[in-house]
């Protein structure tokens, strides 16, 4: 396209920069990173438009912005994953040419991608070594890598079993592997793209501790997140992007959540859900002594009992991997149960009387799956087709033989309008929508037809605050209209502000229950770690 990056460097300076001299001092020192006038297009989409940004050495710098604002693209350019159409990158004051990840690594840049770049079938050690094996034969490099991992573990408190299969690790640990990968390659600049989206509060706190200790070691950190609380908690400076452009830079100490939110979205945002107290009606969902065993024979849910009544939101809090996902899938009819009983209205599910997702849906259940990529949508389909997934049999979309595609499109357009999905284009492929908009589309589908029971997993994962606000308002409205809602989220903020009652689970068992107004982060955190209320009191 155009002449890459690094107009200033005549000969593509690939040498590793000299060690950073000034460590985490004031603004007067040479900045670790300068991005100057970066532009990048993807076909018709202008992902980055003349973006400039400066990050001081040894600082933790935040970047915020709506979905699709261009944050990931900008960082991918810095990491050499994409090449910018124009613009210049300077590292430690020197212009550098970064054409690919190898260049970036040589410049001391490391990145933890939004979607992890790990090989699930490899061990931690192999993942860390990949691309930096050291020698032709693995055996040699392996010993060296093991020693280096031990050192990193000591220095930064990054503990992972080097021989564990990455695919078996919880996301929190996977992310740690990503950080280890970067550090193993000697990164002095670490980029983290939405690292906390999949973490529990405790894991997030651990991550921030690690980031701070990295900072103490002189590493420069760039952090992308949608959670303004985190920006305020950990960063030194923050930049705001909107629609591919950089709109503001602030020292964190001089800004507020409200200001950042407004800068991001371009309007005032309600950060707090306001809702009236619940008026629960009759139980819609009753779960009794439920047991679920997964394909590997591991008991995932072990004797769980609870009810959800019409007109209330029950939040299920737990560290991810404690049976919530399996529970949701079982309730939705996707997973068979091994013991106990589920009753949804008139529908009764027991091990001897299994069910399927169709029947469950027909019984008036909406299900927003935790992972929209894996289940919620069919990415290669046009949005309108994803918007009828699970309802494609309905008479509304079908004639005697053929489907009524006019109805399908009209319906999707209506949903898009109602849920403010942008762009309002039922014909567009699902994968072309941003995460937040995909989520809204799934929600629109599942809220359609006023379900009696709504099963919701991680409704706002990776979604920007504008969309979060919208989604939360919709859920409360559903509740007020009399729906029973079961909300599973690793986001304690979300659970506390949305739910009327909160159940804490650990290891597939119920640890305790709290009314939302009595819940606080500490209590819930402890309960999620299997400390019962009684134990806390004593």
């Amino acid at each position, binding site marked *: 396209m155009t002449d890459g990056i690094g107009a200033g460097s005549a000969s593509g300076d690939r040498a590793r920069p000299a060690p950073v001299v000034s460590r985490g001092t004031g603004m007067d020192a040479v900045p670790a990173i300068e991005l100057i006038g970066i532009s990048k297009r*993807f076909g018709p989409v202008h992902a980055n438009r003349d973006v400039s940004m400066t990050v001081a050495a040894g600082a933790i710098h935040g970047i915020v912005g709506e979905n699709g604002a261009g944050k990931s693209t900008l960082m991918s350019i810095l*990491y050499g*994953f*994409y090449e910018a159409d124009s613009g210049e990158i300077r590292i430690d004051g020197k212009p550098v040419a970064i054409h*690919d*990840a*190898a*260049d*970036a*690594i*040589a410049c001391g840049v490391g*990145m933890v*991608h939004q979607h992890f*770049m*790990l*090989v*699930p*079938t*490899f061990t931690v050690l*192999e*993942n860390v*070594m*990949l*691309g*930096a*094996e050291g*020698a*032709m*034969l*693995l*055996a040699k*490099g392996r010993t060296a890598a093991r020693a280096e991992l031990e050192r990193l573990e000591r220095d930064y408190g990054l503990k992972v079993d080097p021989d564990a299969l990455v695919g078996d690790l919880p996301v929190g640990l996977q992310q740690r592997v990503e950080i280890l*990968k970067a550090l193993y*390659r000697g990164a002095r600049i670490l980029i983290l793209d939405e690292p906390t989206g999949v973490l529990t509060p405790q894991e997030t706190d651990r991550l921030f501790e690690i980031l701070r200790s990295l900072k103490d070691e002189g590493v420069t950190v760039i952090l992308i997140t949608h959670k303004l609380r985190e920006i305020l908690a950990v960063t030194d400076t923050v930049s705001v992007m909107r629609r591919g452009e950089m709109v503001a830079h602030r020292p964190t100490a001089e800004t507020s959540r409200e200001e950042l939110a407004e800068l991001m979205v371009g309007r005032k945002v309600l950060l707090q859900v306001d809702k009236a107290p619940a008026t629960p009606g009759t139980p819609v969902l009753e779960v009794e002594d439920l047991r679920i065993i997964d394909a590997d024979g591991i008991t995932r849910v072990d004797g769980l009992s609870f009810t959800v009544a019409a007109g209330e939101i029950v939040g299920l809090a737990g560290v991810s991997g404690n049976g919530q996902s399996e529970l949701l899938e079982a309730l939705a009819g996707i997973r068979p149960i091994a013991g106990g009983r589920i009753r949804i209205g008139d529908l009764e599910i027991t091990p001897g009387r299994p069910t399927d997702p169709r029947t469950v849906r027909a019984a008036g259940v909406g299900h927003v799956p935790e992972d929209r990529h894996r289940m919620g949508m069919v990415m290669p389909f046009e949005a309108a087709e994803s918007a009828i997934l699970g309802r494609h049999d309905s008479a509304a979309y079908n004639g005697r033989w053929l489907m009524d595609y006019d109805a399908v499109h009209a319906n999707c357009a209506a949903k898009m309008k109602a849920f403010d999905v942008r762009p309002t284009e039922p014909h567009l492929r699902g*994968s072309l929508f941003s995460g937040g908009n995909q989520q809204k589309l799934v929600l629109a589908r599942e809220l359609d037809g006023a379900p009696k029971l709504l099963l919701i997993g991680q409704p706002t994962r990776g979604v920007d605050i504008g969309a979060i606000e919208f989604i939360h308002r919709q859920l409360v409205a559903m509740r007020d209209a009399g729906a029973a809602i079961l909300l599973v989220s690793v986001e304690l903020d979300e659970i506390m502000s949305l739910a009327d009652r909160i159940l804490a689970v650990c290891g597939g068992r119920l640890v305790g229950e709290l009314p939302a107004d009595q819940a606080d982060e500490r209590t819930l955190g402890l309960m999620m770690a299997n400390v019962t209320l009684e134990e806390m009191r004593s």
Partner: protein
Amino acid sequence: MTDTWLLAVLTLDATIRVAAPLILAAMAGLFSERSGIVDIGLEGKMLAGAFAAAATAAVTGSAWLGLAVAIAVSSSLALLHGLACITYRGNQVVSGVAINVLVAGLTVVLGIAWFDQGGQTPPLSQAARFAPIKLPFADALHDIPWLGDLYHELISGHNLLVYVALAAVPATWWVVYRTRFGLRLRAVGETPAAVDTAGVSVELLRYRAVLITGMLCGIAGAYLSIGQSAGFVRDMTAGKGYIALAALIFGKWRPVPALLACLLFGFLDAVATRLQGIELPGIGQAPVALIQALPYALTVILLAGFIGKAVAPKAIGVPYVKER
């Protein structure tokens, strides 16, 4: 008793002869597919190798030159496949089919143009082929009961390329699981983005993988035309590339299970050959077609009964595109 033993040994001997090209081709396919490139074109590359080997050997009288040219020709086809699938991100199955069809025609057209024998190459003299190698002491040890036969018939007396095929398996295993290249190869077939972000070129890695595929296919082809037979005839691979691919999938894209699958195919074939026309107890003489169908039917049954779901390398068949 010893007759039965000898027959058993000879059946295994046949198994190895039949399996050798399958093994080479399966190992070839393993490199390509582990790197994420589907290779339906094993058949075509093998056929091209067979033709190149026989044609060269016929002209020069040298088996070694034949082998070298077979490897070169098959490798260039592999690079063509790479060009289509890696550089131009074409459909990998189509590219493989194209190579198969192209080679099926081209070998005959060139064969007619050069040798004027209907696409066959002239029959090769002993010197222009890889002759059976008698391993040391094969005769001396022949008289030892049981083991003598085993050594003399089964282990000794194959042509060089059979031993190459057998050696290719541990070599493949070692490369794939013990070397840097192997680590990257396995990674690029699962998660190319991980390799890319680790600063390693996905394209280069895949090119190297398909090149190895080409080389091994070339050896497999040479085995057919200047090892096992003495010349090239049209379509002489007769579906072996597909069977090798099946063995690779059967073996879940791992060297040793793939080897076992190839041996199984070879064994079923050897046994079926020996069952033709034999009176089976209770059934009488089974229809020829039934016996001929046996290896295929058994494969289906084994596949359904014993082998779990074969999980392919995740990124297989998908061109790697950064800008999705």
